[in-house]
């Protein structure tokens, strides 16, 4: 395994951020790390990047311990933070040159790597422009390119597509898939489950600092064996949710206060949909929208954590 994290523990004061987390990611594998806000994802990523030392447990990258052999191990890791970690006052090439030099690149090798990563993220034509002139999507792509400049063997991607346009998102997906084919191990966190379903071969779901499920998306969905029923209802939302949670086959209900949506994780979702419409009709609650998702990672997530992935903590 390229990444071998075992029995990771981390506490901040009395709060346990990560408890006994074990992860392994092979070369060429894209591994999804999912969890609601405050679940311990960020702390896990920080430990995997060597930013935070675990209280207990170990992280090895290609056999190198990230605490004992910090500098050597960090050379093998690329990180793409959720923030746009670029210098807007410099050009894309200057940004890449700076980070490349920090990782020990220079001369022709550095120039070649700058050209290569700009090509990977589709910014080869704009490399000499100041980054402050880039669109948000282009800055996201540069953010990814910086993480790749030193040819890491493990890439940690923390919400790499937040706020990007569809064109840039697709370009980022293509880049990630290409890197995976070239043998890079990738850990991917996102709030967008469709991204994880598309990209990741294996997924881990963490909640309250603990690993609560791990497997391929198909394995997780099969184990849960249910889908999603999404209803857009008129107020009162709480009353509707209370009526639906008691229906046979419903394993969880989540309310989206903003748009009046109720999302139900359910066994036999078609039958639950019929029953739900009947119950709401009798209660005098109008329904303005219906969506049926037979089986999804989101449903698994909702069942396991009782929260939507986009919930606030």
């Amino acid at each position, binding site marked *: 395994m390229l990444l071998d994290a075992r029995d990771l523990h981390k506490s901040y004061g009395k709060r346990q951020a990560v408890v006994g987390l074990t992860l392994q990611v092979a070369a060429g594998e894209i591994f999804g790390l999912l969890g609601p806000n405050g679940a311990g994802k960020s702390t896990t990523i920080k430990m995997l990047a060597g*930013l935070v030392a675990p209280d207990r447990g170990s992280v090895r990258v290609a056999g190198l311990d990230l605490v004992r052999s910090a500098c050597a191990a960090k050379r093998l890791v690329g*990180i793409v933070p959720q*923030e746009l*970690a670029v210098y807007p*006052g410099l050009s894309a090439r200057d940004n890449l040159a700076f*980070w490349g030099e*920090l990782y020990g690149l220079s001369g022709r090798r550095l120039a070649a790597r700058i050209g290569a990563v700009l090509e990977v993220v589709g910014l080869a034509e704009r490399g000499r422009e100041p980054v402050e002139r880039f669109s948000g999507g282009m800055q996201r792509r540069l953010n990814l390119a910086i993480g790749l400049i030193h040819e890491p063997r493990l890439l940690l991607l923390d919400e790499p597509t937040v706020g990007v346009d569809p064109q840039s998102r697709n370009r980022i997906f293509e880049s990630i898939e290409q890197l995976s084919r070239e043998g890079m191990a990738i850990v991917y966190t996102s709030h967008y489950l469709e991204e994880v379903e598309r990209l990741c071969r294996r997924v881990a779901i963490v909640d309250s600092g603990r690993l609560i499920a791990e497997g391929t998306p198909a394995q997780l969905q099969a184990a849960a064996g249910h889908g999603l029923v999404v209803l857009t209802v008129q107020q009162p939302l709480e009353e509707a949710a209370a009526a639906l949670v008691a229906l046979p086959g419903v394993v969880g209900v989540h309310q989206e206060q903003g748009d009046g949506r109720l999302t139900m994780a359910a066994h036999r979702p078609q039958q639950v949909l019929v029953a739900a419409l009947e119950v709401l009709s009798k209660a005098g609650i109008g329904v303005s929208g219906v969506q049926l998702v037979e089986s999804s990672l989101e449903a698994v997530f909702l069942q396991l954590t009782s929260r939507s992935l986009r919930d606030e903590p």
Partner: protein
Amino acid sequence: MKTLRQIWALTWKDLRLLAGDRTAIVTLFILPALFLMVMSQALAGLYNRGQLPRVLTINADRGPVAAKILDRLSGAVRLEAAPDRAAAEARLRSREAAAAVVFGDNFSRLAEGGGQPSVGFIVDPAAPRELLAPIQGAIRGAAERTLAEVVLPIRLRERVDDLVAQSPDPLVFLPLAGAFDNLQVGEVALKEEYPSGSAPPAQRPGSLQQNVPAWTIFGIFFIVNALALSILRERQSGTLTRLAAAPLSIPVLLAGKLLPFYLINLVQAALMFALGIFGLGLQVGAQWPALILVTLAVAAVATSLGLLIATLFETPEQLGGIASALVVVLAALGGILVPGFVMPELMRRLATLTPQYWALEGYQSVLLRDEGIGGVLPQVGVLLLFALGLFLLAAWRLGRTPV
């Protein structure tokens, strides 16, 4: 080699970012230079001993005594005749002069007749006591000496005349006939000396000797804001996360982050002294190594303080103008904005708690006392202790701050 390249990469990056930051350039270079040019002129009167206080004269005396007093006074104040009291008062109100002296038409007659002549002294009510007291002293001294020279011969002649009238042989007093002409009252000479071990001053403290080092120190400490902002922006943008994830040791990261700002401090000091020397005429003497040593120590304190300030806030918005306000307050306390010699005792004691005070002391030891490296070691030592203390505090804070 690899380490040095990493430090240089970090340094070069920050220098380039700062070169594009107009606010930083104005704050670090243009404002201190403007302050220096304006304040060295504005405070010239406070220091420049060649520029005597202006005193107006209204002399209606019909005899010679007032003229003699004014003649004696001309070395201590700058005298200008006013046609009448109304004109003098108008000029006092418009702050053209600090005071006016008035001699009445019978001043000489009273003086020579043994009376009690008086000198009118009109002052601007807004004129500070510190300015008026030396003028009053000078007028009183000149008047008393002159009156002594005028009155004493008259009294002596009167006494001799009495003695002649009573004497059986008046001719014995004949040698005294011209003895009291041009009688002069003696003056006590002041011999200036210095504490043992101290060299005579290279220069008298003047506006430039106060203002060039003072505003250099002021500008140097504005690096606190630029450095703290740079670190907080790195934290906010996520580049600090990336830096922490890079294969850099903590000392390399700190060195790379502090060095550009330290170098800017040195450039600031060089430019400010160049402006002082070539633009304003400051005389520096030969103790350049001592001047450079003080500068190196001041810059170390300023960058350490910037690092500490960065650890006390989480975002640039939180920092706001706090760093700038702190720098201004420390400058005021440390004798940068207001010279120490006009401060009350308590403020002078408080000043010693600021690095700015020791920096100014160090610079002025070189500029005014012509001290070399050995002479500024006490000030440099205190500055380095400040730098070390602030740096250790910042390192401790950094260790407790999550990336």
